[in-house]
């Protein structure tokens, strides 16, 4: 499978069909001299910012801290938690169980939730 074309940058959907970010990066492992295999997906919490580095990375970390996420780290989703891949990547657990809802929950509780009618 062409991972760059068919996996990277795809939308992630959890078992409740809720959006939970994109496939920002892939974790590969290689044992001995064997070809590397996909160990899992990396998503959210500055995964892309790490790649861009410099000012962008510092800014993103600061924004996460602003909403109470003091130590943002890319979320690792083991490959065996991927249910299927079509136009999106379907996961077999909820985003809450996978830790993919931290930013949305923080924004919801700390900012949006405080506005009447939210």
């Amino acid at each position, binding site marked *: 499978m062409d991972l760059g074309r068919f996996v*990277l*940058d*795809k*939308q*992630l959907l959890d078992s409740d069909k*809720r*959006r*939970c*970010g*994109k496939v*920002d990066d892939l974790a590969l492992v290689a044992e001995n001299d064997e070809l590397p295999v996909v160990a899992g997906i990396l*998503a959210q919490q500055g995964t*892309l910012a790490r790649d*861009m580095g410099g000012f962008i990375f510092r800014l993103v970390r600061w924004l996460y801290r602003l909403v109470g996420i003091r130590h943002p780290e890319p979320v690792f989703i083991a490959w065996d938690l991927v249910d299927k891949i079509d*136009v999106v990547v379907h996961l077999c657990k909820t985003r809450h169980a996978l830790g993919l809802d931290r*930013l*949305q929950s923080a*924004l*919801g509780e700390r*900012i*949006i*939730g405080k*506005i009447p*009618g*939210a």
Partner: protein
Amino acid sequence: MQWHKIAGLALGMLTAVGGFVDIGGIITSMQAGAQFRFALLWTLVPGIVGAIVYTEMSGRIALASGRAAFDVIRERLGYKLALIPLVAAVIANLLTLVAELAGMALVFEFASRVSYLLWFPIVALFLWIVLWKASFDLMDQGTALLGLATFVFVAAMVALHPPVGEIGKELILPQIGGSSVAAYLFMIVSLLGANMTPYQFYFYSSGVIEERWGGEDFTLNRASSIIGTAFGGIVAFGIMVVAAMALYPQGMRNPDLRSLGEAVSGPFGVVGWVLFLVGTFAVSMGAGLESALSTAYSVAQYFGFDWGKRFRPKAAPVFSLVYTAMIPLAVLIALTGVDPIQLTLWAMAIAAFSLPFSFGPLLIVANDQEYMGEQQNSRAINAVAIFLLLLLSIITVVTIPLLIINIGGG
């Protein structure tokens, strides 16, 4: 089923309203007629054709792939390249929002004689309340219905008995007389930017998903794109001719919006004035809603978070935060005292500058069989779309020096 079709046409109308007949479209069309009489009417032809082609394309992308156009663009281009249309759209949309809110505030200034700057924060809060509380259907259909009042510009054009033969000649061979070539080129850029704003295509595509159009709605998509755009284009034509007939002879080369309202109320009296106010308010509000929502759609889709009006704000917090944050930012920009007419012209020129960064990715995705299946662009559509993209790319290159010359020339 019938209501679904009517609602679908409303989406096309609202999108076109956001393109042709928002405050940017009204002001640039007015300026074009007042400064150059009929010499810029021809720009409506590529404007209408381009808007139809790219609106239909963005809707077809959503229907074929089940996902909004920007969502697919993000995936197809990757996160680094997709940053370009995202940043371009955010900047253009924010300036457009300021202009649209200014349009809403100016209507109250005309009705009350209280400065639009005092009305600005009030209309901004009103717009945010509509974004926060109203359903997508109510926003879409409500503003499209009220926007029909702008047909008063077409009626005023007919009442002024325009010289049809002369207009026909100018459509083919425009005469700019002794006017500045740089000013003429700047108006071309502003008009094309006003008639094809980036937000309208991403908004339309996301709207197709919001309204849950299905795989059988390709014909509705075409009809909505054509009818909505045609309506917007006809109204823009009417505005330019009214300005040419009523304002140009008076030597008004930089008229304000009130002058246009007076030109419309000339043939129709108070009724014309009221329709002018209602129509201007409605289309400015519609375009304001579009530009804010389009930005929120694009940001949420870029990062892969929940988006859409079907969620309560707390359930789609990134989406809600983006359009909420745009409101105070727009107020801050307006309170710098920048002239709303000038700001509108600059916003439209910047929108024109950003168009290739929006159109290019749309074209790539619309030709990708993985996303489009059998609904890929035909050769004819590609030919028209590529020609327009090249035209807009040339405009992008000349926009910056024209902006500098125009600002320097005051």
